[in-house]
């Protein structure tokens, strides 16, 4: 009998693990999910509400894919994990045994104990169920006169964009002095503030939620703002103040948890044959400058790729390469390669360039002394992942990066380039005399 690998969670982490185990072995694989029958792209949920796509378009694999690859899908909600008996109990009373268990549980929206946080019309936006709920709570501007979003991060801005696509007035409460300023440097964050307001979103910075007020039917009727005690009438409240690992049902198991499921570099928990990956995994010691819990699509996938090797007899630590990420803020795309912090690290400095149209900017974090390139945030311009990854590995100087910026450009053909502007701003800033190099296919494809 082949080993039975059970994966709880059919998100990107769990599904990547399953796919790679199947590439490497004939093990029996079961993916368990309480959310949906099939894997879908969580990042695309917003586009369903906005009418860009239908649910079926968010499924990266056709439905026959799973049986063709002998990956069994089980729809069910796990209530208990018995690691002694290596068995799972489901809410319908049924059981399933495993030889190896992969916890790819994902996250749930944070609730910080606000009064009224469980009222009808108050919701986060993470799961397919949350999306269905939003469709019910805010079908159009007639039945939803105003929505208030609490928490200025990536999901908050997505939710604001979604609601605006149906002309629903949105008030966006952000605790920080500027949008996503704990992650983004001031210049970028300020540009996004202006962009958000230009989309007719009522952005309130330095503003905290005090409580959510109920009508007589247990439905939200308004929110109260802490600083001003102002009452804002609304029909929907979006709670988007971050997410945390979805691990409540493990409380009574022997699996060691902190904020997430504690794992070592092999992604193993304290219990043999039980692993955790993706949003729910908490590294015992953070890797490099990374956070110990990384709730990001890409890291979930990378953990899945790595864990499949370990499970198939080639134990390997989770050892991610250079940090990268991306997002889109309304009309402005964002990419980041390497590390750029909101305030430069000790011994580092920032070089910031912003375009006069106020919809494009970059920030480079570099070593103050030798100007070694550490990372770049890019807004409104697309750049090549491969090139920046290589430059980071090669420890290039920022001078080199800025001179060769045309190699990195990934905007569609015929787009106007901004490399010249950036270079001249750089020369002004550092008193250098750098010259822009022509784009070279040879350099772009040297190693790939």
């Amino acid at each position: 009998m082949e080993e039975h690998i059970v994966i709880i969670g059919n998100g990107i982490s769990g599904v990547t693990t399953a796919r790679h185990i199947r590439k490497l072995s004939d093990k029996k694989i079961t993916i368990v999910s309480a959310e949906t029958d099939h894997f879908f792209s969580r990042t695309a949920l917003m586009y369903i509400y906005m009418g860009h796509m239908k649910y079926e378009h968010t499924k990266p694999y056709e439905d026959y894919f799973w049986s063709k690859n002998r990956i069994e899908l089980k729809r069910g909600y796990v209530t208990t994990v018995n690691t002694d008996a290596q068995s799972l109990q489901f809410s319908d009373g049924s059981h399933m045994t495993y030889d190896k268990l992969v916890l790819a549980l994902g996250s749930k929206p944070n609730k910080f104990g606000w009064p009224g946080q469980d009222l009808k019309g108050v919701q986060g936006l993470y799961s397919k169920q949350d999306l269905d709920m939003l469709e019910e709570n805010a079908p159009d501007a007639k039945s939803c006169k105003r929505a208030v979003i609490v928490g200025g991060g990536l999901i908050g801005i997505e939710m604001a964009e979604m609601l605006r696509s149906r002309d629903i007035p949105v008030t966006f409460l952000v605790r920080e002095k500027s949008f996503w300023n704990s992650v983004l440097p001031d210049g970028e964050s300020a540009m996004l503030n202006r962009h958000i307001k230009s989309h007719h979103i009522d952005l309130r910075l330095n503003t905290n939620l005090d409580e959510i007020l109920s009508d007589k039917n247990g439905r939200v009727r308004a929110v109260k703002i802490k600083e001003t005690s102002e009452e804002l009438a609304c029909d929907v409240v979006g709670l988007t103040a971050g997410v945390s690992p979805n691990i409540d049902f493990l409380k009574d198991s022997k699996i060691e948890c902190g904020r997430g499921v504690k794992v070592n570099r092999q992604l193993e928990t304290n219990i043999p044959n039980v692993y955790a990956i993706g949003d729910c995994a908490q590294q015992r010691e953070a890797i490099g400058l990374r956070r110990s819990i990384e709730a990001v699509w890409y890291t979930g996938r990378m953990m899945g790729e790595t864990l499949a090797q370990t499970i198939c007899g080639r134990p390997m630590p989770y050892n991610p390469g250079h940090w990268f990420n991306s997002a889109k803020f309304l009309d402005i795309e964002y990419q980041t390669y390497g590390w750029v912090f909101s305030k430069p690290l000790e011994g580092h400095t920032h070089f910031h360039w912003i375009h006069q149209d106020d919809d494009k900017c970059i920030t480079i974090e570099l070593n103050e002394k030798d100007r070694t390139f550490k990372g770049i945030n890019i807004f409104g311009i697309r750049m090549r992942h491969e090139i920046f990854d290589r430059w980071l590995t090669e420890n290039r100087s920022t001078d080199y990066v800025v001179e060769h910026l045309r190699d990195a450009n990934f905007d569609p053909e015929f787009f106007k380039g901004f490399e010249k502007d950036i270079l001249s701003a750089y020369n002004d800033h550092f008193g250098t005399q750098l010259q822009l190099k022509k784009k070279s296919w040879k350099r772009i494809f040297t190693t790939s």
Partner: protein
Amino acid sequence: MKAIKYTGLVLFLIGLSIFTATLFLGSFTLSKADITEFTNSRNIKSELLQSKLESAVVGQQINSVFTFSSLTRAALESANQEHKNREEWDKVVWDKPHTFSFYLAKKAGSGYVKENSGLLWWLTFGLAIIGALLFILPNVILLGAPGIKNDGIYHKASTNRGWIAWGVLIYLVGFYLLLYFMPDYVVNWTFILDPISQALNGGPASQWFVYGFLYCTVMVVMGVRMYIKYRHNKYQVLRTTSVLFFQIIFAFLIPEIMYSLNMPGYDFKNAFPLDYDFFFEWNLDTLTSSGAIGLFILVWGIVLTLIIVPVMVYFFGKRWYCSWVCGCGGLAETLGDPYRQHSDKSMRAWKIERWLIHSVLVFSLVMTVVTLYCYFSGAEAFLGIKSQWIKDTYSFLIGAWFAGVIGTGFYPIFGNRVWCRFGCPLAAYLGMVQRFKSRFRITTNGGQCISCGNCSTYCEQGIDVRAYAQKGENIIRSSCVGCGICSAVCPRGVLKLENGPEKGRINPTQVLLGNDVDLMDYVNKSNPQ
């Protein structure tokens, strides 16, 4: 703004209704002299037909083209039948009945439409154009700042296969059926455009002139929509300009002007085998008897297909033709853009696509071989295939039904590239070059894909772009026409159409960029595909 939009919509619908209603107007009278003149000009030897036509229509005023058509067709068919029975083959008139009736109706028609063609032009084309523009132009403001605006596409009956989409389908299919198979029924449309036709080529408008004019008009109006929708995207703006230019100048104006100069009208960008009748006898005869220009066209047509097309595909991919030059592509990218999301992305559809499109290519080549063999040898058939039969079959099945009725008529339900994806033999040929010998690719940006599916959803060619992007692989597909919309709608900057070195163009991967470099090396090298 919304008020302007709805006013525009109403005007457009009024224009379209009048345009449709004109089909039912007009009266048709022929004198004996008219019929004699007609039979002489068309070199018809049948007195029987002449007398049957005379007794059918002369001396009466027929107030509908449909009645007129059935009377003249009945006369033609009964005359032909008698000649056939008597084996008087030279007296049989081989014109298709509706075409024959069209020629007569063109002569016989009179009435309000014909006498007021200028006014009617404004009430039909004019109103519809102004209405459509009023409907489209407010989007500059209503859509907000430049950027991808696909909000609500799957909520609307027009773009989500609702009742409006089905209505459009029925109208388009009806239009093509009339145009291809019952041209006499649309003779009133040709009256509206007679003055414009006279000005351009010195002759009255045929149904094909109506089609060409309408085609250009629709492309320009819907091109304005493209300009507004993708005004942040220079690739789309240039591409739209290019297809409009080639349609209006190359497909429409140059052939018309050539006619007026007594040359064979030729669309210099229309390459064989899309231009499937290029090697038909009548065309070869026309070209060889048209002096230097005919010879030039003949050589150009052959060079275009054998050298220019593949060389350009090597450097730029098939997009240079399919989404920058071609008329079918041009209509698909303008009129068809609102429907691009309806192409089927399933593996099954891909399989059907490969069988169908390559079968059509083989069909067109077999037809051409048979035709050319018969042309040069004087035989009637080759390998047991009759030249006339295979040409008629291809023209009917592929030329009319597949490319026209289905290819365009089905836009609102099956997407805007049904013909280009499943049927076009030129696309099949370009696709092979693109797949095996080209610098073109859609580059996937390392590990940045989030599998959201926008690229696949909006791929008009039904390519599951995401399937490649989420593996970090470049997209190399014979069917890709390089419209660039996948790259435009990608929210994370993952896709870029580019022409680069052939080496490394196809790059199968297992583990994506961003992970442990040792793992990437190990997995990607130990699993060469």
